[in-house]
């Protein structure tokens, strides 16, 4: 089954097993965080750089490139 999650108010359909980052990219997004006023997205893709972090179900600092998207997840962009 393909999970659907909420991102910043939009419904995102992920392929089963896709990471949150993979699903956001597949939805046409390249960035989902701001740092010092500039946009950031995936950089290292393997959990090293912390550039792609999102808030998932209220918990901040989740690396979108590592976290598999689950049905019903509520994902929010971050800024720092």
């Amino acid at each position, binding site marked *: 089954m393909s999970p659907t999650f909420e991102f910043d108010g939009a419904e995102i359909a992920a*392929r*089963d*097993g*896709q*990471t949150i*980052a*993979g*699903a956001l*990219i*597949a939805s046409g997004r*390249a*960035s989902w965080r701001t*740092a*010092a006023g*500039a*946009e*950031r*997205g*995936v*950089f*290292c*893709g*393997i*959990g*090293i*750089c*912390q*550039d792609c*972090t999102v808030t*998932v179900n209220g*918990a901040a*600092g*989740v*690396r979108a*490139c*590592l*976290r*598999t998207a689950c049905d019903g997840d509520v994902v929010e962009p971050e800024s*720092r």
Partner: protein
Amino acid sequence: MSRRHVVVLGAGPAGLAAAVAALEAGARVTVLDEGERLGGQYWRHHEAITDRRLQHGWERFERSRDRIAAGIAEGRAVLLQRAAVWRVDVEPLRLHALVGKPDAPGRRRVVVRGDALVLATGAHDRALPIPGWTLPGVTTAGAAQALAKRDGVTVGTRTLVAGAGPFLLPVAQSLAIAGARVVEVLEASRLPRHAAGWTARPWELAAAAGKGLELAEYARSLLGQRTPYRTGSGVVRILGERRVEAAVVARLDRAWRPIPGTEREVACDSVALGHGFTPRLDAAIQAGCALTEAPPGSPRFVVADPDQRTSVDGVWAAGEITGIGGADAALAEGDLAGRSAAGTPHAALAAARRRRDRTDAFARRLEAHAIQDGWSSWLEDDTLVCRCESVEAAAIVRASGSASRALRLATRAGLGACQGRTCGSSVEALCGERLGLDARPLLAPMRIGELLGGSEATA
């Protein structure tokens, strides 16, 4: 038969080979890995998504995975996946981990005890700072590879692949298979014909540990796409407002300084950067393992003896943390480390040592791609070097010469969320000194409450 309990940290090629070898030698084995699936970066995959054309040596992976599954069925192996190991103690040997969904609250606290530890923590891409490199659409080469393999996506549709080393070729191939157009592959090194490194066409090297064949496949795939492969060239600036719109490419001299007058603009919506690899040394440093010496900004590696033993009793090391050598070297080193850690005597390891030594040739060829000092001349004063804390190059150069602590406090370079993993080597290169950014008290990101709270279960 061995009665030892061998703990393996990392389940890429080196860690899997170590685990299988230790099981074969009769040991009990516990493998800890941060990923959801075995395989590390080299065999990163998802059963439902990954295109099999992106995998190499897959049969070896399946055999290793199946051998570990058999070990679990026999009651001799334990596998802890999604395990963020945050502390390694060596006397006595104890690994502390949080197990559960990445970065989720409420992960299980676990402690693993054992008689011997094999460190196989691998490496991540090193990308040099470039003006514009924080724009969305710029990723490391490894990220492009990971997204293509694990998620079946590409960040853009027209991608420039740039950096140094033969690993750019499989990345270009993965991007192409995943649906992007690779506009050019740029290799910063000049690769002189008479040097000890590659020939002008890197895929024509003799079949060093099987790499020749693999690289020839990549070359054919690039030719099929009509993708130019240019040596002595690099990306010196990335342009765009809210995301990548183009990149400025220049010829580079032998020191990697851009040659004035050779700049040209290339239209692209994504750039994949890989200037080499940074070994993931945190666990080895915390365990107290001796490292090789290297100038600031160049990678150090774990010192290993002929049987892959580190300077610390009961701790072995295998794979990229002992020197960047690719998957074949990692497999051979892991095999040797696993046998030795299980208690197989030195005299009985001659064949395993010979298999390991045969992979040295490929590792030596990689030296022709080492980062050269002239890269800093493509920085602008306002180029962000530390991405986490948005620290500009000029601030780091201004503060260089201060003591390490003063520099870090004045600029905050290396003190952000990634703890200097991304910028550390570049900051050290710009300052001309080692700052000790890689001696980290915590090996994985965790919440204060996770550090303080709760009892640890024994795995």
